[in-house]
């Protein structure tokens, strides 16, 4: 079933059956502008000095969390939540972090458990982890069966992950991806076995549960920035930089439009 955000793309008013839908012109202009900025920072930054990103508390804890699992000789559990599929950018961001985490678990020889509700995510995660173990130099330590499809049903998935947490008692738990109501079920069970928990999601409602129940929470965009911070990969850092430039433009836009609206309340040019 396509997710909600895709519906926006499937459905269109049939008012203007031309090749170009003029009502979407503002979006096109903004998209082209944004793309230009991203491409600029990507291909210019590399030749320039390395851009330094501010610290994000949850990310400094990643290495600590893996080290802890190794010391305690317990596994580490990473799960992307029930709400996403591979088409969703959040899942890709989560995969990025998984790749980084897997490289460290490979070198520490710490078992990495990855239960998921989506068979496609399972396939991709197996590739990501295999490659990470290969890169770390320990391809034989990879256990493909630890990356497993548990159930597509929301609460079947929650029950399965809960069972894994309470039986295998992971020392560290990463809840990174798109979560729905299962968020707190997993986070509280993880807390009950004394795991360090690092969570991050783009589901705004579930953020409140993670904030309350987890040790560290990556809020929305921080999840996307995280892979750049962890890997210090220039191309990801460049796109974080471009996001910042876009934010400055948005702030300027809001300020200008607000002043305009206060002077001339009848105008509506800022509405999309």
């Amino acid at each position: 079933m396509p997710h909600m955000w895709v519906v926006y793309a499937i459905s269109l008013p049939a008012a203007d059956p031309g090749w170009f839908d003029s009502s979407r012109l503002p979006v096109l202009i903004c998209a082209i502008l944004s793309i230009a900025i991203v491409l600029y920072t990507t291909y210019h930054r590399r030749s320039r000095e390395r851009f330094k990103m501010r610290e994000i508390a949850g990310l400094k804890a990643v290495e600590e969390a893996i080290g802890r699992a190794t010391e305690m000789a317990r596994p580490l559990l990473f799960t992307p939540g029930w709400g996403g599929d591979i088409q969703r950018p959040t899942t890709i961001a989560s995969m990025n972090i998984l790749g980084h985490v897997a490289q460290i678990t490979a070198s520490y020889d710490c078992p990495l458990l990855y239960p998921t509700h989506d068979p496609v995510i399972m396939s991709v995660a197996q590739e990501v982890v295999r490659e990470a173990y290969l890169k770390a130099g320990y391809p034989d330590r990879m256990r493909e069966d630890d990356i497993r499809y548990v159930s597509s049903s929301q609460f079947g998935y929650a029950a399965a992950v809960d069972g894994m947490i309470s039986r295998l008692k992971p020392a560290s738990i990463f809840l990174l991806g798109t979560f729905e109501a299962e968020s707190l079920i997993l986070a509280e069970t993880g807390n009950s076995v004394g795991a360090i928990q690092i969570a991050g999601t783009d589901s705004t409602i579930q953020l409140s549960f993670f904030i309350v129940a987890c040790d560290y929470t990556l809020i929305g965009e921080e999840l996307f920035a995280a892979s750049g911070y962890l890997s210090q990969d220039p191309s990801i850092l460049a796109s974080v930089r471009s996001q910042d430039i876009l934010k400055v433009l948005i702030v300027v836009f809001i300020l200008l439009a607000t002043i305009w609206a206060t002077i001339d309340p009848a105008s509506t040019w800022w509405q999309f």
Partner: protein
Amino acid sequence: MRLEARHYTFIGLAVTVVAAMLVGFQPDVTPSPDTLRMYEYIDSLPEGSIVMLSFDHEASSLPEIRPLAVALLRHIYSKNLRPVGVALLAEGTGVGYGLMRQVAREYDKKYGEDYVYLGFRPQYIAAILSMGESVPATFPEDYLGRPYTELPMLVGVNTYDDVAGVISVADGSFTNHWIEYGHGRYGVRVSAFVTAAMVTTYDPYLASGQLHAMVGGLRGAAEYEKLIGIGGSGARGMLAQTCSHLYVILLIIIGNVVYFRSRRKGGGV
């Protein structure tokens, strides 16, 4: 048996809710204007009108959906309206049929003449649009496998023009699609019974009139039960609902008391 702090919070909640349910005391509820509007709308429909009920929820939210749906169905059957059920989510399909059949028995309603359940169609937007063109083409047969044309109640029911309105029973954003496509494209009147968590999402649509009426959450169910004069699980749950809320507030306060006392003992941090 070793119990930790969390176990005590669990026991507290279980005791609070079970006790509140066993007491059986039902706090008096005053129907809100929103609920009243829904009641008056259903009440004003002429006898025999066809009402389309869309079960747009997952099976797991049944505990909150059931009191809402049962109150609505009781009102519909008692007014001799004729509901036709559909489902936009596969998981809600069986649930919707079960609810319609269960309440129908209370009122001696006959399947096929007084109510019909068409079942599930995948691709919700396509389903809504296609029913706007032709309901029988979308559902050549009903949930039980009987041909549409052999169901006496549905003779002459071809598009949304032939139904008095659509009522979406939902736990998520599916009511949106009814508003956008059912109402937006075909102008059918859309109302909704939704879980408490969704009420704020649909408030703007209610205000703009795109949504005709809305009843939300267990509280809404209790209010509706009061209006139709038949007590149900909504009213029974109200005391438990309030008590559990107060219990959570109490836990937050106790948590802080414990924290500040231990901090004072520990001399700071």
